[in-house]
Every structure is written in C-alpha cells, then in structure tokens.
C-alpha cells in the first residue's frame, strides 16, 4: 500500500507540473487553452524522435519543442486571443469564444500531428530499470521525472515570488486593473505568461514521455487532467496546483488499487464534481 501511495505521489507530482503551465495561462493570462494538451504531445514526440531517430538523450527534444511551443503560444495569444478580448461584450461571451477558438486549435494541431506523425502510439525506453526508494521499488525514469518536476515547479514558484517580473505576474493574477495602475504592461506580460505556460507543458511532455506512451490523440486527456487539477487547487495558485496534483495522483493510484485500475477517470471526475459543488473556488484558493 505504501508503494501505491508513493507511486501516486510521484504520478501526482507530474500532474502538478503539467497543470502549472495551464495555471500560468488560465490563472494569469486568464485564457483557458483547450489545445494545451497538444503542446504536451509535441514535447513528448520531440523527445521520442530524439531518442529513436538520433539516439540522443530525450531531453534533447526540448531544444526544439520548448522554443517552438513558447513562440507558438505567444503568437496565439497576441494574434488570436487578444482580438477576442476587444470584441467581447462581457466575460461570459469572451469565455465562450475562447473555448471555441482553442477547441478549434486543438483539432487543427491534433490533425496536423496525425497527418505528420501518424495515429500510432509511440514509446521508447529510457532509464526503465527499477530502483529502491524509501523502501519501495519504483522505475528510475518516473523518479527522475518526479524530481525534475519538483525542481522545475520550485524554480517557477521561486521566480514568481522573488523576481520583479514574477511579482508582476502574480499581481496580474490578483487584479489586472490594479496591475495596470502600478505601471505593469498587463497585455505584454500576459502574453509572456501564456507563452511560458506553453513552454512548461512541452517540458512536461518530454519528462512524461520517458515512462508513458503517447499518441496524437492523447493530448486532450492531459488537458482535461490539467484542468481538473487547477480547478481543484484553485486557478492561479501554483502551490495549490502541485498539491492538488499530488492529491489526484494518490487518489487515482489508491482508488485503482482498491477498486479497479480502469476507473481512474471516474475517480478524477468525482473529485472534480465534489470540489465544484462544495468549494468552487478551489481547495487551496484565496477564499
């Protein structure tokens, strides 16, 4: 059972990392990105090709996927999403437009991936031996990914609190109007946050690809998981996302162990419903 929980934490840490990028996009730039998972897939595929085609360390895939994801997300925000803000009469209409647009992008990207890389499931082997960790046996690649996630997440949170730009980003998340009044260029920084979110999810994709298979159509599942994590943790709360991720990971593993491994989504979903009904601002929200 301990091993199950530990597995859950490790997995959950990954979920938390995956959600961090979306938190940047939704919590700070305030745009929900339903094509988010496609950039995860791009990161995963990039690493896959690095290993299988060029026989390199999977992290070399990041050299391509991260800048591409950063740039593409920035462009999307600047040229596709910003015009919607100017056009929308109210927040709900804007949300609706953003959802539809990013759904459209999801299909376009997924379609492109399917055309160029095929619909097959891809996986590779890297660090797949098991190690002893705190008395349990876990695959090395998962552990490496987990620690990388912690480090990355920690760095991000540190940057958000200790740097001037990071503080400005947090300010935008709290009150974009007040942020403008203190001289922060809200639109530019929001675009930066959005692009950064894209970069982060590409990194997550690369890390996860070490131990999970990916396919062109899997992106949407990760988007959904990330969404569940940030809703449960509270949009905009970075620490909350990590904590919620781990909670979900543990619940999934424990639930799968006790009941049935085929019901992971049901467990995730039940937690989502409970949170939405009881405390819709999120478990770790500002309140």
């Amino acid at each position: 059972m301990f091993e199950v929980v530990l597995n859950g934490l490790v997995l959950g840490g990954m979920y938390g990392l995956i959600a961090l990028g979306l938190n940047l996009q939704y919590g700070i730039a305030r745009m929900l990105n339903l094509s988010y998972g496609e950039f995860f897939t791009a990161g995963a595929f990039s690493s896959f090709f690095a290993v299988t085609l060029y026989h390199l360390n999977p992290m070399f895939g990041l050299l391509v996927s991260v800048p591409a994801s950063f740039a593409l997300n920035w462009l999307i925000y600047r040229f596709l999403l910003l015009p919607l803000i100017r056009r929308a009469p109210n927040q709900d209409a804007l949300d609706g437009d953003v959802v539809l647009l990013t759904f459209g992008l999801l299909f376009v990207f997924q379609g492109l991936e399917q055309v160029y890389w095929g619909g097959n499931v891809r996986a590779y082997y890297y660090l797949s031996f098991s190690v002893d960790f705190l008395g349990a046996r876990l695959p090395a690649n998962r552990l490496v990914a987990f620690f990388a996630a912690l480090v990355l997440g920690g760095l991000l949170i540190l940057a958000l609190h200790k740097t001037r730009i990071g503080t400005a980003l947090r300010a935008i998340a709290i009150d974009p109007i007040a942020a403008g009044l203190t001289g922060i260029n809200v639109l530019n920084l929001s675009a930066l946050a959005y692009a950064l979110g894209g970069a982060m999810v590409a990194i997550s994709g690369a890390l996860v690809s070490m131990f999970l298979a990916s396919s062109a159509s899997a992106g949407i599942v990760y988007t959904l998981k990330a969404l569940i994590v940030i809703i449960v943790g509270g949009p905009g709360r970075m620490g909350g996302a990590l904590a919620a991720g781990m909670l979900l990971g543990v619940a999934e593993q424990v639930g799968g162990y006790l009941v049935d491994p085929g019901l992971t989504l049901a467990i995730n979903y039940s937690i989502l419903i409970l949170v939405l009904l009881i405390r819709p601002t999120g478990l770790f929200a500002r309140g």
Partner: protein
Amino acid sequence: MLRLEHISVAYGKHEALHDVTVDVAVGRATAILGANGAGKTTLLKTIAGLVRPQPGGKILFEDRQIEGEAPHRIVAAGIALVPEGRRLFGEMSVIDNLRLGAYPVRARPGESERLEQQLTLFPRLAERRHQLAKTMSGGEQQMLAIARALMSEPKILLLDEPSLGLSPRLVSDLFAVLRRLTEGGQSIVLVEQNAYQSLRLADHVYVLENGRIANAGTPAEMRQDKMIQKAYLGL
C-alpha cells in the same frame, strides 16, 4: 501641466462626462467635487487610461497628448492613480505592494530610498511591513494605496474618494497626510464627496454636476457660493 480639453465619455448610452475642460497646475492641489454619479470617478479613470474618451477630446500632459493611452504608459509618464476601493494586491505583503508601485522603469533607481520614505510617512505601514494587505484595516489600506502610488514618483497624484468608508477620525488623519504631501510640493488631483475637508486642502476647485463642469474657482469663492450645498443637500 495637465490639461483636459473637451473630454466626453459615454458608457454605452450613458454620457458620464460631457465636454469637460480642466486645468491642473504644478504643485497645486485641485479638488473635484460633485454629488454621486456626477462623473468625478469617470474623470480620473479617463486621465489614468482606464477609460477611453470619445474622439475630439484631448488630454495634454507636459505638451504630450496622452488621451486613450494604456494605463501603464500613463504611470510611466508620471501620473499615478489611487483608485476608488484602493485595489490593493490583497494576498501580497505591504512591502510587495510598495515594491510593485516602483515597477515603472523611471521609478526604479532610488527605489529603496523611496520605500524608506513611505514607511516614515506612514509609520503604521512600517509596523506591518510583512503583513498581508487584505488583513489590514480600512484606514491602513488607504494609506498603503497612497504609498504605493507615491512609489512611482508621480508628478501628479490622482486620488479617487480616499475618504470612502473611513470614520471621521481616520478622515482627519488622511487629510493630514495629504496636507503634508501638498506642502512638500506634490501636485494632487482629489475627487471627493467630503466637501469640507477638500475645500480646506485645495488650491483650486471644480464642481461637476451631471457630467458637466458647473462651477470652478478658489475654495473661498466656493464657500461663498451656495452651489456646493445645493449640489449636495438640495437646499
């Protein structure tokens, strides 16, 4: 140094400001009075770039036209707004709020000195420098909002109803601070419902009624003219 010419603002079909012309001179305290809904807040929001005036209106600041520019550029130019309701970053500490006030590049050199300056001017803030802004009392929050705006070293400080929701004693404290600022040479534009204190502080007064300038002059002239009392109490 700051001049609004023929400024009109409409929210949908509601004309909040109509053909308003206002002059703010250096080193002076200008008060804008008027009943609720007269358009005072809209006027400040227009200067600060939160609201766009209709075509034809101009805002000139130090010979540059700034109407319609984004808020952060207005701050960079040297005009800082202390908004109605304060709009502090509640989950951040006093220090973080103040630091953010010095975000414009222009204000970064000398940030630490200015920080100390604010903490001296507002001793209660110094006591609570690591406290979260949202846990402070109304009066303390108002002080923090003013201090944050001052951190950007503004040439003109705009204040939107700073006495809102404060007890009479706190209102006195607030105006004492404002007086210290004006005596030190800070130009301010003050929008207030509280006419008496504003008249004591200001060098020049404008009265807004239904989106139009109804009267303007020195505080002495305003006191003679029963307009204020009429506007506020319907006498």
